[in-house]
């Protein structure tokens, strides 16, 4: 475990040094993510200009949900996005060989190599949105609630990570992973909606079959309603299941990797 922490810290240090070398790039990308976050907040503001409730959720409750969803997404962007996204290109070009020669679990090495500080900066801003919404709602969560909220956000991050790994893994069979980005962002759109808005087929599909709704709703509900064992356990079980599935599919794919270089 300490070994992996050391490897990860070395990669993180390298990423930070690299970011400082391209400060303009860092500024532009931070702005890009900030703009896209603002787009989502703007949508909430516009809808609640004309209505007081969406599926029983008020404006600031919705803001808290959207802030939580954005925070999980930005954490994913900060910690894993670039590394996972590059797997497609590396498998196609044969550069994936580089990870096979590294001293550690290949999935860990390949998915944690790069850190994007712009995503992490924006995750702090998303956390600011959550704090603001909680303040407007007059919420005073206990330390235990805050710890549970952080734990469930962590579970959400694991689920997003697993979905992204599962989305990129077909590259081992197809040698192309085009459309992964669009597919992932489309699916995460559902995580900005309250669970109560889903009915019938959509409820079955996006609440029960795919974990795209519970991923943000479970942590948001901890702040709004306190500890609800059903939601917490559900998210924990989903995180474990989807991570196991991602590990399984990734390693099955790895067996197919034949290296493009010769």
């Amino acid at each position, binding site marked *: 475990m300490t070994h992996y922490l050391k490897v990860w810290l070395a990669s993180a240090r390298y990423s930070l040094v690299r970011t400082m070398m391209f400060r303009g790039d860092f500024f532009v990308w931070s702005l890009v993510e900030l703009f896209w976050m603002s787009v989502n907040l703007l949508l909430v503001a516009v809808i609640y200009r004309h209505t007081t409730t*969406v599926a029983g959720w008020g404006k600031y409750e919705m803001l808290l949900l959207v802030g939580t969803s954005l925070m999980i997404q930005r954490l994913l962007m900060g910690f894993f996005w670039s590394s996972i996204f590059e797997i497609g290109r590396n498998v196609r070009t044969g550069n994936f060989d580089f990870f096979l020669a590294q001293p550690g679990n290949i999935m860990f090495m390949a998915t944690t190599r790069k850190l994007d500080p712009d995503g992490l900066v924006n995750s702090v801003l998303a956390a600011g949105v959550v704090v603001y919404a909680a303040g407007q709602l007059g919420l005073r969560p206990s330390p235990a609630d805050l710890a549970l909220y952080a734990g469930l956000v962590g579970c959400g991050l694991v689920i997003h990570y697993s979905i992204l790994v599962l989305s990129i893994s077909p590259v081992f069979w197809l040698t192309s992973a085009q459309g992964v980005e669009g597919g992932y962002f489309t699916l995460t759109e559902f995580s900005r909606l309250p669970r109560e808005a889903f009915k019938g087929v959509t409820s079955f599909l996006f609440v029960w079959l795919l974990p795209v709704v519970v991923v943000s709703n479970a942590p948001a509900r901890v702040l709004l309603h306190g500890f609800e064992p059903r939601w917490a356990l559900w998210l924990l079980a989903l995180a474990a299941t989807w991570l196991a599935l991602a590990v399984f599919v990734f390693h099955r794919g790895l067996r197919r990797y034949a290296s493009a270089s010769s």
Partner: protein
Amino acid sequence: MLAAFEKYRQAFLVGLQSNLVYRWNFAVRGFFSLFHLAVVFILWGAAFAGSERIGGFDLRQTLTYFVTLLVLQFFISAFNEDYQISEEIRNGLINQFLLKPINYFLYRFSIFVAARLVSGVLILLPLLCAFPVIRDYLTFPLDGWRLAVGLPALALSALIQFSIAYCFGMLTFWFLEIQGFVILSMAVEAVLGGQIFPLDLMPEPIFRASQYLPFYYQMYFPAAIITGRIDLPTAGQGLAIQTGWVLVLLAVNHLLWVRGLRRHTAVGG
């Protein structure tokens, strides 16, 4: 004149062939768009549960607006034209056009039209699959003038979309990497183009101000004409402003091309 037309017709046909190669990419993108449509239906369905009309329009009119927007995106939006132009400049592929009697803007525009024809037809397939579910939510006004004004508005919107992408592509003459600028601009275009919510739901002064920006004419304007969100006098006035923006953007395109070429160095043989 005919010879010139023939040149670009060939470019169009090449564009058609090369985009048909990527038909599955467009099909997958179209399929994922249905998920986006599902999000829109769920969100706005829940919002309308609290009030019968939002911004003067009912749920069916609002959902019709978003379905129209989806179709228009595949018929007139610029997808990755900015990247393609950027790549051609960065890799030096643009050099060949400097030596041939061909206008680079018209060449790229011919390929853009071909690409949108392919993607536009392909989005109709997933929409046809979804039609049994969404048909009850669709309601289009039947005024004849909407078609007469809507079609030129659509053509001008496509020109604006392409011109903005072309401008970003041209920035490669100055910057090595344009991806950040493009995605930054996409966020602005998505909001002010009415892709996130109908612009008429914004506060009145902001909505009025947005009518003088080119983004308003990228997507919202033609969609609003077709789905009955604006009346004839507003559409006529909008068409005039839209034409003005097309001329401005064409001039900027030309300026960037001329100034950019001064900085360009063609290396190799």
